[in-house]
């Protein structure tokens, strides 16, 4: 019988999840809502990173999050559909819209991908601004319900309108999403995406259907964006088109650039550090975007691989320093 050994990576992961399970009981209302938002943002940035593995930086990602948010909110308000049904369905609806987006997008690279995705996403977002029925126009939708309470005979009722139970829903959904995306990243599919990014003509010539795989990556990313959107809508309880505009997209890009996109964990580190920084810079108020602009440019100039590259860089610096001292 093979002995099952727990690797240090697994152990630290279990410790982290345990920490996240204990955390909400220690936090106040404000800190808890920031943490819940952080968990939702992690789903968004990791699904964004999934699309970057084919080489496309998708500026339509927040509009796709918006698709999930609007779908889930509208279904819950107008038809009274339960939260548990609308969240997965929101993922599928975003995936279908993403499939439509992907048709022109996967046929272009780099600059054109960037701008075209921005333009298509903006067109979608502006249609929410324009159509007062059913999207509520510029003021959006409010009074989005929280999930209905769970009650089992003999057990206390779980009321999801409170922060802590909702936090746990988000935590579980996030862990499931991350698990699936991590599996995809490690699978043959994920490696094919990276092969296409590194050497598209070569990948094409060995028989990989490049367009097909790029479409798959885009649709998968859109699916998880939609799920994150649905979680966001039921958390904020009010959404409007400005939540999904260029400014929010720029923040998404900052998370990805700050953390780096080569590893699975990079963007997660990026969004975590950025959230901490945002809270720390709160006294600066309206000057904050200026600071972010400088940080963004500084990271691109001096640490192009993002924070995930930092340990490697530091160790080379230390080595250089040591050899310099010995000399």
């Amino acid at each position, binding site marked *: 019988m093979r002995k099952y050994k727990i690797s240090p990576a697994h152990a630290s992961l279990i410790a982290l999840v345990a920490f996240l399970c204990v955390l909400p009981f220690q936090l106040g209302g404000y800190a808890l809502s920031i943490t819940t938002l952080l968990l939702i943002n992690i789903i968004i940035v990791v699904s964004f990173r999934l699309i970057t593995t084919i080489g496309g930086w998708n500026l339509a990602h927040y509009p796709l999050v918006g698709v999930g948010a609007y779908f889930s909110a509208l279904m819950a308000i107008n038809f009274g559909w339960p939260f548990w049904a609308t969240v997965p369905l929101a993922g599928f609806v975003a995936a279908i819209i993403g499939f439509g987006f992907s048709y022109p997008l996967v046929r272009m690279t780099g600059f054109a991908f960037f701008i075209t995705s921005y333009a298509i996403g903006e067109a979608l977002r502006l249609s929410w601004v324009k159509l007062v029925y059913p999207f509520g126009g510029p003021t959006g939708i409010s009074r989005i319900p929280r999930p209905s309470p769970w009650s089992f005979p003999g057990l206390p009722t779980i009321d999801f309108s409170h922060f802590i139970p909702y936090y746990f829903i988000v935590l579980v959904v996030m862990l499931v999403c991350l698990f699936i995306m991590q599996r995809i990243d490690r699978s043959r599919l994920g490696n094919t995406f990276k092969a296409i990014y590194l050497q598209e003509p070569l990948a094409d010539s060995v028989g990989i259907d490049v367009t097909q795989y790029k479409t798959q990556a885009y649709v998968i990313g859109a699916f998880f964006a939609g799920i994150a959107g649905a979680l966001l809508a039921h958390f904020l309880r009010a959404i409007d088109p400005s939540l999904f505009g260029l400014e929010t997209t720029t923040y998404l890009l900052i998370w990805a650039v700050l953390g780096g996109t080569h590893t699975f964990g990079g963007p997660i580190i990026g969004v975590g550090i950025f959230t901490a920084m945002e809270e720390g810079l709160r006294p600066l108020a309206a*000057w904050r975007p200026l600071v972010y602009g400088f940080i963004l440019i500084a990271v691109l100039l001096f640490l192009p691989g993002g924070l995930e590259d930092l340990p490697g860089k530091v160790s080379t610096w230390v080595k250089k320093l040591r050899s310099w001292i010995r000399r």
Partner: protein
Amino acid sequence: MEFAIQTVANAWVATFLYAVLAVGLALIFGVMRTANFAHGEFFMVGAYVVWLLYSRSDWPFPVAVVAAMGIVTGIGMITELGVFRTLRGNVVAGLIASLGLVFILQVTVGRIWGLGLAKPVAPFFPGSLEILGANVGWQRFSIIPAGLTMLGILWLFLNRFKMGQALRATAQDPEAAALMGISINRMALLAMGISAAFAGVAGALMSSVYPVEPYMGHAVILMAFIIVIVGGTGSLIGAFVAAIMFGFIHTVVTTVFDSTVAIIIACVTMAIILAVRPKGLLGREKV
């Protein structure tokens, strides 16, 4: 009939505004492989300089326009030296860095001169031009001769001057150009200077037409980018042709519906054109 002429006249005004902005963007994309989101903010800074000098300090309007051109050119060159030079050739990093610049310029301008109401700029050319019953304000009209002059000078420069030919050579093949002894760094600086100067003049002339506020760049940058892509990235003539096309689409749809619908229609048109022809109208290579 009057309505049709009015729309056509407005469409030409929009065409030249977009052409001036898009040709600048296409030029720096061709030379530096950098797409500059802060181009719209250069436009905004140009308008602010005119507001500061002409409306607030009573300088003569032409002097204010020249000052706007100079200041924006300076900002463009500084960003080239400080940011885009290191990131040249890396399209994604250049674009994201330019988004950082957008934040920096918007917040700086918004914090110094305040948000809220748009800054008032009285038109320098009063009255309006009447063509067959249609009215076009002289201030709006001024972008047409100004745009024609700027584009004409650029065309002459690119085709008749040695430095302009060097610029075109760099856009076609930077490595080969470098081997012929052309300094890529100097060409990139030149391209960025020209592009920023164009944006500055466009902003200066349109300062009394567009509401002058820190976010005014958003209104034009998306259309300018759409035009660059549809025209075929790096192709200046393609950018001009696409500017005419989208100038008309935007103006007609704005007149019939409103400007939000116009942007939606423009984006959808772009997606359709690119799905059929990924190189753009006059592009040589797939981008």
